[in-house]
Every structure is written in structure tokens, then in C-alpha cells.
């Protein structure tokens, strides 16, 4: 029997081996996916209205008209989100942003944006997750806990699986290392190779590790045992195919990426190391790449009559803080849930249009809410996996919810 495999869009891993049993366009069973993936594939069981204005059900035309009028009346609208949207939607949103002179940003401006930018510009050596599965012998999880955030990362790609050049897998041929401020579930799996450092201790730890790699005595102000650091340096030096998975824990703790560039340089003088960002959403990478191709920047831009400006002042956080935006179109994201309340609260003062496949804190405060199809589950398209590989997918079920792409195009027409 021929099997149909679907893609899970539940996280940046975009697992492509998911089996789904559905009846009358309701997903009943999901196989192979993790706990989060199963919940995600079943999210399509919803019975909310497709279109709301002021929290009251309306028809599509009314919602589109209202959305267009909000954007038309705004001097500096913000478009934000798109991390779970397919590439085609992201490109449509960029076009819309240009047309209405909008500020455009996504979560990467306060997550892994700098890393995505460095990778897109080829400033760091990277590889694919398939390379990791087939070849990696030393795997570092730094400031990240995939066991919770990307649940199948260790079993499908990085530590447990057999690979073409790694037939004996984790038992004999792979060393997993965690560097973190707390003993996460991933750190537990790493056993003796868990290196616990104090909050904000990462830059110093990198310096000490570089000293250790260069045969000097590694010192830190928090007296990390030099013997343990030298032991780590020795493992890294012996790596034939090393990979560092970098999470927000590391990025938030560094002032800039310089220490990471230095570490990668020396690691590649002594051994062979790659870096992959632990991107959370299924297509944040796509947003960064699509915007970069169009503007030369990965996030935080403002379009102005054919020109484009860029800088942290055009990030969602600074735009809301400075109250420089006067309307917002939020696509597949919930800023009121994910941002500090002290900042997100300013969004309550401006008219908001939100597009999502379920009601969110943000949608409840929106003037217009459009209940859109779930990318991957109900709408096909393509997305960029956290390692930069493009993954295309067909929907698992049909839906009567409109796709984000179609709605964006209709709003454009109505402008």
C-alpha cells in the first residue's frame, strides 16, 4: 500500500514523515509526530467563525473592507508575524508592506535574527540536519533544550539515529554535550557532558574554551573547573564532524556574535564544526531569507515610497515602545502572549487586524479577526527548515477556512 506522508509545521524541524488518519476533514489520528506535533495537526478541530469585526461574526467582504480601511487610514502600519506562514504568504506580505509603506518585522528580531543573518551571509559554516544524522560525531546543544522545544530533534537527526557514516549511533559514535544555565531534559541526556554555567556566563565560557583549545589555561571569573573545560576542549578538537545547535539561551546572553565567530574560527582550525540555529517557528527562516532577498535585511524594516529603512527602531518591540506605529496587521502570531506585557500593552491602543487559525490573546483585542487555514495541515506550500532546507508540502485535509495568502491578496485589492 502506498503511504502518504505529511509535513508537521509544529516547529522549525518540519518533520516530513507524518502519517494522518482523517475522516470528513477532521484529523483523528496522527502517527510519528511528537506530543506537540500531534496537538498541532489536530488544531484544525475548531468551530469559530471565519471572520469577526469587533468580535462579532461578519461576512468575508465586510472583514476585508474593514481591514483595508484600517491599513489605508494608518500613517505607519506594522505588519508582524509570518513565522508559521508559507513562503508564498510571506512574499505577499512583503508586497503589501511596500504598497502601504509599512514597518515589517517578525519574531526573529528578538530571537535568533542576528544568527540567521550571519548564516544567510555565509559568515558561519553550516550544514543540513541530514548531514548531522549521517556524519556528526560531536553534537553541542548550547542554550537550547530541543527535548522540549523541538522534541524529535535528537531522535530524528542529531543524537539517537543511525546514519550512513554512523552505524553505531549514540551508543558508540556520538558525543552529545549540553551547555546551559539549567539542567534541562536535553542536558540530562548528555549525562557527564553537561556543562552548567551561570546566567550571562556564556561569553566568558567561550573565551575560556578558546584558551583551552589553544593550549592555555582556561580561566573564568566564576571559577569554572579548568580541568572540565580542558576535557571539553579535547573532545571538540577530536571532532571529525562537529555541530553546535545554538538557542536563545546563548544569543540572549551575548552582547554580539563576535565570541561565536571567534569560537567557530578556532574550532575549524583544530577540527571541523558547523552551526545550526534552533529556530522555533516552522518558517521563520523563510521569512528571513525572503526579506533578505528583497531588501538585504532579515527583519525590522520600514518601507517608504520605494526605499527601505532598517534598524532596531523598526522592530516590533521598539515600534510598540515608541508608539511609532498606529495600526497593526498580525499574521499567525500572538504578541500579547509572547512579548513582555510592559511593551505589548501599547498594542491595545491601536486598531489591530489579526489572522490566525485559533483565537489568541491578540485576536480578542483585534478590530478584525480572520480565522485562516493552518499551513501544512490545511494549506499547501513551502517553508524553510531551521537548517535552510526548503520543504514543500500538501495539506493533510481540506478546509473552508481561507488561506493567509488569499486574504492578503484580497486586502491588497481592496486598498
Amino acid at each position, binding site marked *: 500500500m502506498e503511504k502518504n506522508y505529511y509535513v508537521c509545521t509544529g516547529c522549525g524541524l518540519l518533520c516530513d514523515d507524518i502519517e494522518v488518519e482523517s475522516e470528513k476533514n477532521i484529523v483523528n489520528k496522527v502517527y510519528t509526530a511528537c506530543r506537540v506535533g500531534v496537538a498541532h495537526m489536530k488544531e484544525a478541530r475548531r468551530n469559530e467563525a471565519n471572520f469577526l469585526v469587533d468580535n462579532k461574526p461578519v461576512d468575508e467582504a465586510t472583514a476585508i473592507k474593514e481591514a483595508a480601511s484600517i491599513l489605508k487610514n494608518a500613517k505607519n502600519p506594522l505588519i508582524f508575524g509570518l513565522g508559521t506562514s508559507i513562503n508564498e504568504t510571506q512574499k505577499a506580505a512583503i508586497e503589501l508592506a511596500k504598497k502601504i509603506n509599512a514597518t515589517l518585522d517578525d519574531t526573529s528580531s528578538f530571537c535568533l535574527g542576528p544568527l540567521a543573518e550571519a548564516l544567510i551571509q555565509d559568515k558561519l559554516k553550516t550544514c543540513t540536519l541530514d548531514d548531522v544524522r549521517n556524519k556528526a560525531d560531536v553534537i553541542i546543544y548550547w542554550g537550547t533544550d530541543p527535548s522540549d522545544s523541538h522534541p524529535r530533534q535528537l531522535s530524528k537527526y542529531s543524537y539517537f539515529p543511525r546514519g550512513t557514516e554512523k552505524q553505531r549511533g549514540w551508543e558508540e559514535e556520538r558525543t552529545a554535550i549540553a551547555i546551559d544555565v539549567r*539542567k534541562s531534559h536535553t542536558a540530562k541526556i548528555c549525562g557527564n557532558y553537561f556543562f552548567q554555567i551561570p546566567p550571562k556566563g556564556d561569553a566568558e565560557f567561550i573565551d575560556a574554551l578558546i584558551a583551552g583549545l589553544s593550549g592555555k589555561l582556561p580561566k573564568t571569573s566564576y571559577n569554572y573547573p579548568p580541568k572540565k573545560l580542558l576535557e571539553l576542549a579535547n573532545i571538540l578538537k577530536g571532532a571529525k564532524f562537529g555541530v553546535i545547535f545554538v538557542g536563545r539561551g546563548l544569543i540572549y546572553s551575548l552582547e554580539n556574535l563576535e565570541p561565536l565567530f571567534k569560537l567557530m574560527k578556532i574550532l575549524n582550525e583544530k577540527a571541523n564544526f558547523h552551526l545550526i540555529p534552533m529556530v522555533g517557528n516552522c518558517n521563520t527562516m523563510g521569512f528571513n531569507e525572503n526579506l533578505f532577498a528583497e531588501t538585504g535585511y532579515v527583519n525590522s524594516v520600514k518601507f517608504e515610497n520605494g526605499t527601505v529603512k532598517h534598524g532596531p527602531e523598526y522592530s516590533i518591540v521598539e515600534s510598540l515602545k515608541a508608539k511609532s506605529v498606529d495600526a497593526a496587521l498580525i499574521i499567525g502570531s500572538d504578541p500579547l502572549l*509572547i512579548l*513582555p506585557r510592559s511593551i505589548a500593552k501599547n498594542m491595545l491602543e491601536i486598531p489591530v487586524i489579526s489572522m490566525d487559525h485559533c*483565537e489568541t490573546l491578540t485576536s480578542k483585542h483585534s478590530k478584525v479577526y480572520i480565522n485562516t487555514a493552518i499551513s501544512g495541515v490545511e494549506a499547501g506550500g513551502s517553508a524553510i527548515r531551521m537548517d535552510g532546507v526548503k520543504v514543500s508540502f500538501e495539506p493533510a485535509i481540506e478546509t473552508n477556512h481561507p488561506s493567509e495568502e488569499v486574504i492578503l491578496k484580497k486586502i491588497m485589492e481592496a486598498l
Partner: protein
Amino acid sequence: MDFGSFLAAPEIKVKIITYRDIFQDKAMLENRFGEEYRDLSAVVKLDPADLKQLDVKKGETVILKNSFGRVVVKAEESGYETPHRGIAYMPKSPWSNMLISDETGGTGVPKFKDISVTVTSAKGEKVTELML
């Protein structure tokens, strides 16, 4: 007369480290306005010695407060073998987000992993409801 009620409840200062939790993420996908998501989010995990100093038993509620916000959440023991007095752990959620500074130094990046709060017993006060 209960003189105890006139004494200030013990108060400690802690730094909060936020983290992701697969069970909480799953609960959010199922219903971010639901009880399960609240129960798995509105939690702070403390060192047992800190709980003792606060005179709070695990499962009871505490007030976390700083100049940005105040939330009532359930206190739990962290379960980590190594003592970590003064450091507490919270899953990343709207509850932890209530306590984050709006100071960003113009970088666009909030200090998600740099939260300082005082903790006191909430004396039975209920967990803060999700702010709508």
C-alpha cells in the same frame, strides 16, 4: 488575637530563569485560554530552602513582584539536585512576561532571561487569571 498577621510575611529576592516545556506547549496549542495551560504556566520552581524561608509549602501560591508587574503563581520545588537558592525557574508564558522590563537599550530585544523579583506567600490568593 493573631499577632502573626501583623508581621510582614518573609520576603526573598530571586532571579528567574525561563524555559520551554513540551507539556505546556501542547496545552497552549489545545487551548491557550484553558485550565491546563494556566496550570502548567503559572508556576515558579524554587529551591526547597527558599520555600522554607518563605514559609510556603509546595503547591501553595506566591506573589512575584517587581516594578513591571505582579503575578500570583503556584510555587513548586524545582527537583534539581544542586541547590540553587536565589534562582527560580518559570516556563515562558504570559505570566512570566508580566515581570519583564520594558528597558531594551534600543536593541529591540527585551530582557527575557533577566528577571528579578521579590517573592512572598500569597496567603491563599488565587493564581492570576490570564490578562485579556
